[in-house]
Every structure is written in C-alpha cells, then in structure tokens.
C-alpha cells in the first residue's frame, strides 16, 4: 500500500494513503477532539459526516480549516491541531451547538456522561454569544416502552442514524427537516412504538447527548422495595456482572458478581437470583427442541423447520417480526431466559414461599433496553400481571447503588440465593456472541451422542468477535453446521440466505448488539471504545471457567425443577410456562 509522509504538530508520521488526519494524528499520540465522529473499530462502523466541525485543524497552504475526521492526508501535508485559530474555531462551533441546546444539564439523565457537556467543560465555555438569535426547537418527548427521545437535545451528529440504518438495517430513525428544526426521528415523526424500531438500544449506546436515553424504572423499583407486603425478587443477566464495575472505577473486564449480589441485597431485595439459572433452563428446552427438529430432519421429514434460530434476544425477535414476518416460525419457540425466569418465579417459586402471584415483584437487571419492552408483551402476562414486572439496566442499577451511597469496591462478595441463583458456566456465556449456541452445543452433544464432553467442553470455533462466524461440530459422525451473527445487519445476511434456500446451517445464533449482550444498549457507555466490549467478553469466559458445573443439563436445581414441577422438557407444563409464539408486526401497503 502506498505510504505518505505527514507532519502533525511537528511530529512526523508515515501512514497509508487515504488515512484521515484524525487517524494519522492518533498514530503519533495526538488526540483531536471530536463530537459527531464515531469509530467503532471492532465492528467496522465509522460515522464521519464532517458536520459538527469540532475536529477542525489547520493545514498549511489551505485557506479554511479542515475537518480532521473527514479529510484525507497527502504526502508532505503539514497539520497544526492546536493553534489559536483552531482553538477559537472549536470554541465557536461548540458555542453554536449550545446556542439552541437546552441548558437543564443539572437534571438531564446524561449529566456527567455527556460528550457535549465534556467539550463545554474542556473549552471552559461560560457564556454563549448570539444565543438570542437561536431558535429553540420544541419537540414533544416520546416515551416508548424502552427508549425515551428528547429531540430538543439532538445535535444532529447522526450516529444513531448510522447504527439504526447501516449496522442494524432497521431503518427506524432518519434525519428530517433542516436548519434549527432538524433532528432524527421515525417517519412522519411518529412515536417510536409505531415504527419498525426493535428497541435494541444501539442508538442510545452511541448518542453523545441526552437526546436518546432509556426509560427509567428506578423509581418503580424503589416503590416496590419500600412496600412491606411484597416479595421483591431480582434476577441479574450474565452480561451485567462483566460491566457494572466500570461505573465504579474498575478496569473493563473486571467481574463484580459477588459485590453486585451484596449490593442488591443491601438495596432491599428479598431474594437475589440469577438469570443464568433461567439460561440453563432455556438451554434444556431449546437444546431438546433442536434435537427434536434435527432427528425429524435426519429421519427424512421435509416439513421440519431448519435451521433453528435462537430466540433469547428480544430485539432480534422484534426484528424478525417486523422485517421477516414470513419466517416467524423458524426461531425456537423457547422464551428468553428473562421470561422463563419470570414465569417460574411467579409459579414454582411463589408456591415454595407461599406467596400470591400479585404480591410478587420480579425485577430483572439487564444489559438491554429491549428487555423492558419484552417484559410488557401481552403474552407474558397472566390476568394483566406481567411475569417480569419491570426491567432495569446495568446503568440504572449503578445509579441506584450510587444513590444509596454504597461503595462497590468496599462491599463483601456474596452468593446468589437458592434455588433460582444456582447456575452453570453454560448459563454465564449467554452474555456474549457465540455463547448461547456453545451452551446449547454442550447439552445437545451429550444428549445426542450419550457421551460426556469432559475436557472438550470449550468450543473455540464458536468464539470470537467476527460479524458472522460459521463452524461445524462433529456429533459422533453427524456434522452439525452452526452459524453465528451479532448485529441485525449481519443477521439479515443469514436470513436472506435462508430465504433463498442457500443456508447450510442446522442452527443459528443471533444477537442484536455488537458482541452480544455485553454490548447491549443498557450497559455502561463505551464512548466509542469497542475494546471495552472485548474485555467484557473475556470476563464472561473467565466466569464460565470459574464455575464447578459448566453444562446446563447438569444444574442440580434445574433437575429438581423438572422433577418437582415441570415434568419433561417440551412437556405440557413446560410448553405453557416456557414457550411462546411470534407475530407479524410488519407494515403492509393495502388497497383502500
């Protein structure tokens, strides 16, 4: 590749032709401030509309300033990144952006975690000249089941649009209007709940300001805990323990499982359980379903639906319901771990502690925004009482812990309660891309072959961070082809293959977020550093290693649950409590 020599702030750097000034500067340790620019290197997403001009730099021989994020270097280019002209321009740009931006930072959900606020602090902006000429927009706040949109806070960086359209191929959000009135919204500025939004929350994960945030259920949680008549039960998703620590100064990838349990107990939960328990249950059901479909297929049944797709990611489920309704019968009918947990907690466990369903409050702690929506779906309610009352994110839990003035680092490590806190390593790896299918493989292999996996329990071929991965696993002479995709745009590619009859897979795992749940829309913000997601992934695999039992079907509490209550996997009771169906939610043009 052709190389070019560039001088940035008197430092020489040689970079491939076509490199931007921003990236070349990074090579020599010069950090040019950016706002609209976003580079999620590990998932191949780059947003460089060159719109905000915060990254303006001076280029020798060029009259106007150049946006470093979108300007390519050339041989012999001389760049200055912090002349007075550059600093003044940067200030003016941020002042302009602030001129029509709400000033209620103190009560904004993103306060302390806002990239625009960070810039204003960095530049020491104390007044906003020309503010009186700015037209403040007055869009109404849109509350969907998962995401809150406050368009007045939108600065038109278009990062959300990039994620929603290019990475997820959902197409719910797009820029509209122009000038002061411009913002990002669904078509006709309709509420998000009527749009094809999947609630994956990747727009929220990249929004630099408070324009896109999660629906906050913290107050509901405090109310539930304060009510002495209710039994409040927590379930924590696998990915939460691998990220919560970041909010308290731990290095990314630090596991804080025990401290998290102790914090939840001190917050006042009556029982602290683990979604991993329900993940094990999911594997037993889903693994049995996969084997059932496979053996029918191998016996020559042409009607059987293969490949079987995983169904634990609610954003993915909504994606297929909206965009591929004709394929809604190919995912496993198994409910997600969150919902299996809820239905078991409000039946089996409620019976055990002699509590009435309506006095049970099941709260899930999730890395996810779509889980909020999933918990409110009608099919997961009994007489209008939801199996999971509400779901809070890793970020909301971190806020609650801070609000209670607990210092996570000083907390003791404690264990989950029994019985629904018992889990295996297979349940833990649900938190990362490839994990669900690896967990299913561990169980399906042993059920199918009758052999024990022993040392060969780690399926390296299923792991990694590539967008789409393909692997074959030998089930004692029968080859099982497995596909894995994270990100809905990648999932779409696999779905198109199935549609065209070209799919070679028996089973496919799909997760909507980059890296799987570890990169969920409810996790601590990565602020464009995707290496954080990889660190979380390593933590998840570490937690799996730490577990004495690593196969879902060997979880003693799961065995007990079937023996005492459910009967057989895919049996009548299991079907009623642990399985579901999917709906056609697509938009259809009809003749009037």
């Amino acid at each position: 590749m052709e190389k070019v020599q560039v001088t940035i702030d008197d430092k020489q750097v040689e970079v491939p032709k076509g490199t931007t000034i921003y990236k070349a500067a990074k090579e020599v340790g010069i950090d040019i401030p950016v706002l609209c620019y976003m580079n999620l290197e590990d998932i191949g997403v780059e947003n460089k509309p060159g719109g905000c001009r915060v990254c303006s730099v001076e280029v020798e021989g060029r009259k106007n300033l150049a946006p470093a994020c979108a300007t390519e270097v050339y041989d012999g280019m001389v760049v200055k990144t912090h002349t007075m002209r550059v600093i003044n321009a940067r200030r003016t740009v941020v002042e302009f952006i602030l001129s029509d931006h709400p000033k209620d930072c103190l009560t904004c959900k993103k306060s302390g975690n806002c990239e625009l606020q960070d810039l204003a602090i960095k530049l020491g902006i104390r007044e906003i000249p020309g503010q009186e000429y700015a037209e403040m927009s007055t869009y109404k706040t849109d509350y969907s089941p998962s995401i809150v949109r406050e368009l007045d806070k939108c600065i038109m960086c278009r990062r959300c649009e990039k994620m929603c359209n290019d990475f997820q191929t959902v197409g719910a959000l797009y820029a509209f209007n122009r000038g002061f009135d411009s913002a990002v919204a669904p078509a006709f500025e309709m509420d998000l709940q009527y749009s094809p939004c999947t609630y994956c929350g990747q727009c929220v994960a990249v929004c630099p300001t408070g324009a896109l945030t999660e629906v906050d259920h913290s107050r509901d949680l405090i109310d539930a805990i304060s009510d002495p008549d209710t039994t409040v039960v927590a379930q924590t998703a696998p990915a939460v323990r691998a990220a919560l620590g970041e909010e308290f100064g731990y290095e990314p990838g630090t596991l804080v499982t025990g401290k998290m349990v102790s914090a939840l107990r001190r917050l006042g939960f009556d029982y602290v359980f683990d979604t991993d328990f329900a993940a094990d249950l999911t594997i037993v059901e889903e693994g049995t379903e996969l084997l059932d479909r496979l053996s029918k297929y191998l016996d020559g049944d042409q009607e059987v639906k293969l490949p079987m797709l995983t169904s634990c990611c609610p954003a993915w489920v909504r994606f297929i319901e909206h965009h591929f309704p004709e394929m809604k019968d190919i995912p496993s009918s198994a409910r997600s771990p969150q919902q299996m947990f809820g239905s078991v907690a409000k039946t089996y466990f409620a019976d055990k502690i002699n509590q009435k369903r309506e006095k049970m409050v099941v709260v899930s702690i999730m890395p996810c925004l779509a889980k909020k929506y999933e918990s409110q779906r009608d099919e997961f309610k009994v007489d209008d009482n939801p199996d999971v009352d509400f779901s809070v994110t890793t970020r909301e839990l971190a806020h609650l812990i801070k609000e209670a003035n607990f210092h996570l680092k000083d907390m003791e490590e404690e264990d989950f309660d029994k019985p629904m806190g018992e889990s295996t390593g297979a349940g833990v790896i649900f938190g990362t891309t490839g994990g669900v299918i690896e967990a299913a493989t561990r169980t399906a292999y042993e059920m199918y072959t009758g052999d024990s996996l022993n040392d060969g329990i780690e399926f390296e071929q299923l792991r990694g961070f590539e967008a789409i991965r393909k692997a074959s696993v030998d089930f004692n002479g029968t080859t099982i082809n497995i596909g894995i995709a994270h990100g809905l745009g990648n999932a779409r590619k696999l779905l198109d293959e199935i549609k065209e009859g070209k799919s070679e897979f028996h089973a496919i795992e799909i997760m909507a977020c980059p890296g799987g749940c570890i990169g969920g829309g409810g996790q601590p913000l990565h602020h464009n550093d995707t290496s954080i997601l990889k660190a979380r992934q390593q933590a998840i695999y570490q937690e799996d290693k730490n577990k004495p039992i690593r196969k879902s079907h060997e979880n003693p509490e799961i065995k007990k649950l079937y023996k005492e209550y459910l009967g057989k996997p895919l049996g009548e009771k299991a079907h009623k409590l642990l399985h579901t169906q999917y709906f056609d939610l697509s938009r259809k043009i009809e003749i009037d």
Partner: protein
Amino acid sequence: MSSIKVKVKEKDLNKIKEICSAHGNEPGELINVLQQTQEHFGYLPAEVQEAVANELGLPVAKVYGVVTFYSFFTMIPQGEHPISICTGTACYVRGADNVLQEFKRQLGIEVGETTDDGKFSLNCLRCVGACGLAPVVLVGDKTYGRVAPDGVREILAEYKKNEE
C-alpha cells in the same frame, strides 16, 4: 399484536408503481421518483411516501427525511391557485417581503399553508430569472411583475372573480 396496515387507493398505488418501475425501482432514484410523484398528486401525503418506500425497498423514515429536507417537496395539498413569491436577492431588495406580508395578511395563512377553502396556497421561491421585473409573483403558471403590496388585492380578486 398485528401488522400495521397502510391504506392506499388502487389507482394511486398503480401510478406510484408505474413511476417507480420507470426508474428501475432503484433506491438511488428516490428524488426523481418523488419529484414525479408530487407532479402527479400535487403533494406527498404519508401513505404515498409509504408506498414509494415499499416499492424502492427503502425505510419510510428515509423517504420522509428527504421530503422534509428539500423545500420543493410538500406534504400539504396545494391550493387550486398556488402562489409563489420570489424572495431571491433582486426581488427581496425591491420589497418582496412587504408583498409576502400582504399576501399572508389577506389570505390569513403562513408560508407553506393552504387556505381552508383550498383555493390558494402560499410559497416562496428563489429567483425565477425575471429579475428585471422584480419583485415577481407567480400564480399557477402566470407571472406578475413589479408587484407592490397595494396590488395584491387586485391579483387575488382576479382568481376569486373567475370562480364566481
């Protein structure tokens, strides 16, 4: 839970399909498709945008984004007599703004709106290339030059009278 149904009249849908297929159903032809669609319907209501999006395989949010970005496109049905006031440089310095204010006052509508009886709609445009006649007003295809605020009543009367 069920799918969301968007109702479009059969002949309208056929027209949209015809325009889209004339452009090879290419997503990149969106602006040309919208231009022709607006030419046919006079404006671009939501269900028409939905149908265009469906034909071209684009998210309807993107179609709406394009429609609201370009001032040429409108989602409001145009009046029987669309009035356009040139606010280009030459017309502006010769008092187009005063003319515009007078039209707004007499019609009781803002720029981009249509009167309740559907007769007149009001828009601004930038330069029709008749700067020698500034300020210029267009009603439908007819051009009026050197328009002063006190000439507005007369122009409107011409169209009101024709209807009677």
